């Protein structure tokens, strides 16, 4: 039965091909006559294109074609943005720049040649004349009058202003007993850095007038729709395949100009065209994450009750919108109250254009920023009032329960924040740690203990709250031989759903797990879909699969009941059989399958075949939560931070496969800790990307992490039939404030209230040099 497989630690079906080098990522696919594409990119943050001379490139060995923005004008559409908001400015975003470049790395020309090296050689021969224009890379400067304009036609650099307001601010502001704490917090720009860069093959068949695209994408179906629109083709004639995808983290939840150009080139030339992104291109031209300045005001009673929070968000959107760019900071606003019962809220979000690459969804996508704001704020309250951070949190948690309505307009499904916090305090030995801290401080050693109790918004749906559909499709097809094919519109790329979805279906149908195979990613095979992002694949896609399996069961039960002369409601699926509840009558699973296909003795009204599609539309988001503790040591001489321990208790609802959940949490933690301590994309004032290679961008390596101690609680959600909430982003969302709270805690002896990420030694060293001796206020 279902319970037997669900919840078990089962090894992944995906792994045999991956560990033997037999899987196929985009670059592993070769087609007959395939051509290779290389891009010429802007070396400047802002410049006018005065001339592009492609003559030398066209004459270079192996070159088949060279395209510029002018060549594409009117023939290839613009890079799409799916977000709709009141007053949102959406500048035209051509696949190749026309007239002006607005960020370093913007594609200017495309060269197609018979070989990869030849395409790169010829790209270097394209001569581009640039007239430098003043660039703007600071959001605050971009909003000043007289600032250089990223898009002159828009009149200013303000893309949108959005406000959320709730509660009774008049009485809050009139209450003199309230403490008001203000803090500016910077959430720095990051690179998603999937180890597989982006890549695409477009293959147009002139005879059939069909376009097949292999792309390293999280959203094959959405990509198909948009590539059809871009190329002005009938969507029926387009097919997108996401083959093996080597990591994404939101960066492949997009429609990129390069994909459009590859399709255009293939249609022009009638041959397959491949483009594989280089790592430097990836750093400059694949979407970035975060990049906010958040000014926070917290209103607290002397007993620690937080009554109000105001937040002024500046979100750096970069030069153009990508697919979800302006939607990301709005998620910050929605989640800024975290897991607290705060009655009054005011959030103003300004989206700002600058001469940088677009920001968009990067693991967590707006929610790590929210969690960082509120979790740092709770520590600031604790500090101001001389309370333990645990007590401030406990004081402000809502009582465990369901349907918790917040003034931000969200509605938490189920919550038990006390439980995860208590569990992590026990797991970490919190009170012992506090004693150790006092002991070490007396010796001049700096130990920090940082807490984060987070809640995230996940399982992206319902459709009413999403820019491009929040449902997911699932198909279960029992083949005539009795083997089961599962098709999911979610397009997993490392999360392991080929395994967990097989667990769901095998459990429901009472058949061996090995008899179930899950396919995804091919729009010609999977009828419809949205994709994998926002911790939605299992909660939404898995639920679709679950319901499709119920439809199969209903049909099979009717056929079996007819045969066994019992009622359909009495049929039980177990051990490869359909049987009566008492087991006295039974028939083999395969026998009913055969009957469904041979269709000789079907009950009246039952169609032949066994294939069911279900499209699941969730009634609400899910709200996973957890509590983390980070223990850091600071080198009092150099300011270097070392993370000594990390404890994480996460509640992602029901757990289908604990091994996969652990993997998701670990990966998320590494990315959040990476942001807190090391990672940062830096542009200079001219819009030059200073961290454009892996030499400069501090991707964390194995020795930089301690052993993660993880545990779970399971608070099921009523939002879907599986009770799962999602876990893909939990680690990233929970961890940055835990780290910063830990380091600020260690540095509190020096009067430090706040340090911005990443917590580089020099930022800490400054305080060590200027502050008081650590022993002084130790007692």
């Amino acid at each position, binding site marked *: 039965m279902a319970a037997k497989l669900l919840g078990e630690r089962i*090894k*992944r079906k*995906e*792994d*045999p091909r*991956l*560990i*033997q*080098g*037999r*899987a*196929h*990522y985009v*670059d*592993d696919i070769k087609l007959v006559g395939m051509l290779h594409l290389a891009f010429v990119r802007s070396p400047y943050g802002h410049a006018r294109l005065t001339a592009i001379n492609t003559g030398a490139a066209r004459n270079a060995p192996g070159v088949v074609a060279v395209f510029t923005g002018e060549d594409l004008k009117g023939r290839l559409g613009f890079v799409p943005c799916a977000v709709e908001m009141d007053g949102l400015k959406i500048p035209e975003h051509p696949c190749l720049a026309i007239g002006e470049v607005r960020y370093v790395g913007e594609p200017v020309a495309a060269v197609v040649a018979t070989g*990869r*090296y030849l395409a790169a050689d010829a790209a270097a021969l394209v001569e581009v004349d640039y007239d430098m224009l003043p660039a703007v890379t600071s959001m605050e400067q971009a909003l000043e009058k007289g600032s250089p304009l990223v898009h002159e036609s828009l009149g200013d650099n303000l893309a949108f202003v959005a406000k959320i307001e709730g509660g009774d601010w008049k009485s809050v502001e009139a209450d003199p007993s309230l403490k008001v704490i203000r803090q500016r917090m910077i959430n720095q720009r990051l690179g998603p*850095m*999937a*180890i*597989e*860069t982006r890549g695409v093959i477009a293959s147009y068949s002139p005879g059939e007038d069909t376009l097949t695209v292999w792309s390293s994408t999280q959203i094959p179906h959405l990509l198909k729709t948009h590539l059809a629109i871009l190329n002005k083709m009938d969507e029926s004639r387009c097919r997108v395949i996401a083959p*093996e*995808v*080597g*990591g*994404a*983290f939101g960066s492949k939840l997009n429609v990129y100009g390069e994909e459009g150009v590859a399709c255009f080139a293939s249609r022009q030339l009638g041959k397959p065209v491949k483009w*594989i992104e*280089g*790592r430097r291109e990836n750093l400059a031209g694949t979407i970035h994450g975060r990049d906010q300045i958040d000014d926070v005001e917290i209103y607290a009673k002397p007993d620690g009750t937080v009554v109000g929070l105001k937040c002024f968000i500046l979100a750096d959107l970069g030069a153009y919108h990508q697919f979800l760019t302006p939607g990301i900071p709005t998620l910050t606003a929605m989640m800024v109250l975290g897991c607290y019962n705060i009655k009054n809220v005011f959030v103003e979000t300004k989206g700002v254009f600058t001469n940088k690459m677009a920001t968009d969804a990067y693991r967590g996508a707006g929610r790590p920023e929210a969690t960082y704001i509120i979790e740092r704020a709770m520590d600031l309250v604790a500090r101001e009032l001389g309370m333990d951070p645990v007590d401030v949190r406990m004081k402000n948690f809502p009582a465990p329960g369901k349907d918790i309505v917040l003034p931000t307009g969200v509605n938490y499904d189920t919550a038990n924040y006390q439980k995860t916090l208590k569990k992590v305090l026990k797991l970490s030995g919190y009170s012992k740690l506090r004693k150790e801290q006092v002991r070490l401080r007396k010796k001049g050693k700096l130990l920090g203990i940082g807490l984060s109790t987070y809640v995230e918004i996940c399982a992206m749906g319902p459709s009413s709250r999403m820019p491009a559909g929040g449902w997911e499709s699932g198909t279960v097809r029992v083949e005539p031989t009795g083997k089961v094919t599962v098709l999911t519109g979610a397009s997993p*790329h*490392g*999360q*392991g759903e080929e395994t967990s979805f097989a667990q769901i279906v095998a459990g429901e149908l009472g058949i061996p797990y090995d008899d179930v195979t899950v396919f995804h990613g091919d729009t010609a095979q999977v009828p419809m879909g949205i994709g994998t992002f926002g911790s939605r694949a299992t909660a939404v896609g898995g639920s679709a699969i679950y319901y499709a399996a119920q439809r199969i069961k209903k049909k099979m039960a009717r056929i079996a009941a007819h045969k066994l002369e019992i009622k359909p409601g009495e049929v039980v699926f177990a051990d490869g059989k359909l049987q009566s509840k008492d087991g006295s009558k039974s028939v083999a699973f395969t026998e009913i399958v055969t009957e469904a296909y041979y269709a000789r003795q079907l009950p009246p009204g039952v169609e032949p075949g066994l294939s069911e599609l279900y499209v699941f539309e969730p009634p609400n988001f899910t709200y996973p939560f957890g509590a983390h503790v980070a223990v850091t040591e600071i080198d009092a001489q150099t300011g270097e931070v070392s993370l000594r321990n990390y404890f994480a208790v996460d509640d992602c609802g029901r757990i289908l496969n604990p*091994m*996969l959940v*652990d*993997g998701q949490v*670990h*990966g*998320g*933690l*590494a*990315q959040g800790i990476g942001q807190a301590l090391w990672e940062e994309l830096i542009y200079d004032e001219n819009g030059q990307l200073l961290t454009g*290679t*892996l*030499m400069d961008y501090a*991707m964390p*390596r*194995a*020795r930089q*992490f301690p*052993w*993660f101690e993880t545990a779970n609680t399971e608070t099921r959600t009523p939002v879907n039939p599986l009770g799962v909430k999602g876990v893909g982003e939990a*680690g990233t969302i929970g961890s940055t404030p835990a780290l910063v709270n830990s380091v600020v805690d260690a540095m509190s002896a020096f009067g430090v209230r706040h340090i911005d990420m990443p917590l580089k030694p020099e930022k800490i060293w400054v305080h060590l040099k200027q502050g008081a001796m650590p022993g002084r206020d130790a007692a």
Partner: protein
Amino acid sequence: MKIGIKINGKWHENDVEPRLLLVHYLRDVASLTGTHIGCESSLCGACTVLLNGDAVKSCTVLAVQADGAEVTTIEGLARDGNLHPLQQGFWEEHGLQCGFCTPGMIMSACQLLARNPHPSRGEIREGIEGNLCRCTGYQHIVKAVEWAAEHSGK
């Protein structure tokens, strides 16, 4: 230039451009696409192979430099249909998610275990220092290598 390279026990002879990278030779000429390219600058380690027994990043070795050498790639690890202990360890311990860094990670771990058959967790982390993974947070990779160390030579 004419070169000959023994890859996974099989001799390959080809005429190649002097500038051809070993990784492109493996992938495009020898059609062994298990070795991946993540950065083309020897920083991510996805392209790691064994060159005469040493782990090297094949994106910064020219194919001509490997003339006459023996190269082992991920495709050469399983023997007689049996997974190498490291491959098995990665499967058992969930040492991979998207799988893109995995072949390079396993080849680096091969060198580590050849030099130090029973490494500590710290030594494993040092041993895979040259390989980046963005999915796993490395902990399950450490467990995978431990699993392989425990099950090697049995």
